[in-house]
């Protein structure tokens, strides 16, 4: 086997020259542009990473701001809720107070109205009772309108305080005696006797006719009145009925009233 050493040397030189040529015109430029592109891509990735980090920071900031706004919103809502509740309570309180006042006023009006109605009713009833009593008494004997009332009247007079009794018929002044009708002489005498006995001294009486008494008598003094008649009884019964929590009134024998 023959080897051409010239050819071998030339080929070795050729290959080394080709190494230089390809390195100069192929490998270095292409590798450089690839490296440049990789660097650009790396730079772009780095920029993108920075932008992402910045965007994440901005997003976090925005989330914090949103959270702060939400918290502030919640605080404002809570505060407004508390204020609204307080205002509602105040309005409700004032409304309740006003309603209570109105209710009390209405209750007072109702009570007054009821009282006036009851008074009117009692007055009407007393008038009716007086009419009834008058009509019923018209069927009884006429002396029953006077005779039965004399002892009670005398008892009422005797129960007056001593100072009042002492002034009755003093200085010769007659005792004013009202009667439901004109008294007969016998009745006048009976009254004179009983009243003198009650006072413990004789006393003059001056009889006045007062049909509104219906039946009975009444002594009219400057400082006191002694009643023993149907009118007074009816008035007492009506007053007892009108009074709140009134019980069934008892019919009194006679009554005194100081002036």
């Amino acid at each position: 086997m023959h080897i051409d050493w010239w050819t071998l040397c030339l080929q070795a030189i050729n290959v080394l020259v080709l190494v230089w040529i390809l390195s100069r015109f192929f490998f270095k430029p292409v590798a450089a542009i690839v490296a440049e592109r990789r660097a650009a891509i790396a730079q772009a990735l780095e920029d993108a990473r920075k932008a992402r980090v910045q965007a994440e920071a901005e997003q976090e900031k925005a989330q914090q701001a949103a959270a702060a706004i939400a918290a502030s919103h919640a605080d404002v809502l809570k505060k407004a809720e508390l204020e609204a509740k307080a205002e509602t309570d105040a309005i409700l309180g004032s409304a309740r107070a006003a309603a209570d006042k109105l209710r009390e006023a209405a209750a007072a009006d109702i009570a007054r109205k009821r009282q006036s109605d009851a008074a009117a009713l009692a007055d009407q009833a007393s008038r009716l009772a007086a009419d009834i009593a008058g009509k019923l008494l018209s069927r009884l004997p006429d002396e029953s309108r006077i005779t039965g009332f004399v002892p009670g009247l005398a008892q009422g007079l005797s129960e007056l305080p001593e100072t009042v009794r002492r002034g009755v018929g003093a200085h010769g002044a007659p005792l004013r005696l009202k009667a439901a009708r004109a008294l007969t002489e016998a009745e006048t005498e009976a009254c004179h006797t009983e009243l003198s006995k009650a006072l413990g001294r004789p006393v003059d009486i001056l009889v006045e006719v007062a049909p509104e008494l219906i039946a009975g008598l009444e002594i009219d003094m400057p400082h006191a009145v002694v009643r023993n008649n149907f009118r007074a009884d009816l008035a007492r019964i009506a007053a007892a009925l009108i009074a709140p929590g009134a019980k069934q009134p008892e019919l009194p024998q006679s009554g005194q009233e100081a002036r």
Partner: protein
Amino acid sequence: MNSPLTLTPLFHLGPVPVTTPVAVTWVIMLVLGVAFYLATRRLQRIPSTAQAILETVVSAIDSQIAETMQADPARYRALIGTIFLYVLAANWTSLIPGVEPPTAHIETDAALALIVFFATIVYGIRALGLLGYLKTFAEPSWVMIPLNLVEQISRNFSLMVRLFGNVMSGVFIIGIILSLAGLLVPIPLMALDILTGAVQAYIFAILACVFIGAAISETAPSRKISSPNTSH
């Protein structure tokens, strides 16, 4: 057809005879140089189709170097890439009628193997230092020194003979069939030669990577090299 074992000078440059492989190599150098010069004149960041192909080639070479040598491919790219492209171009010149590939002559393959041999030594000394590189021959034991020295020569010799045998045999077969059968019959074998040429170029470049990679590492070359099966 001339025997590939003999070379006839085409002309002489003074005392230097210029043979066919040298002339064909010059043509290949001219074509590759001009083509790559034109192709890389206006490289842009957004590549054209041609630029994308060139970048793909360079990236593939870089990837193979990095995987084989476990090192930065920039330092070895020019040598390994040029060996690959030159062997590939030289092998494929057999497709041109009347042109014998330079790699079908032992002188070209020997030149390539010698370059790889010296590159192995240069890169090994540069990486480990002279003493460090020489120490790798005494691993795992000083007894292995003769074997490692023989291996340094024999593996480059096998590199040379492998390429020569494969390409030369392809040329021979096509020549014989062409002389016996006719014009169109060798076409399938020529198509096969395309594949064979590419495979041989790849194997030569990868083995060069393996040899250099073993030299720049700190362990014995014989323990690191795992040559692929390259029989044709």
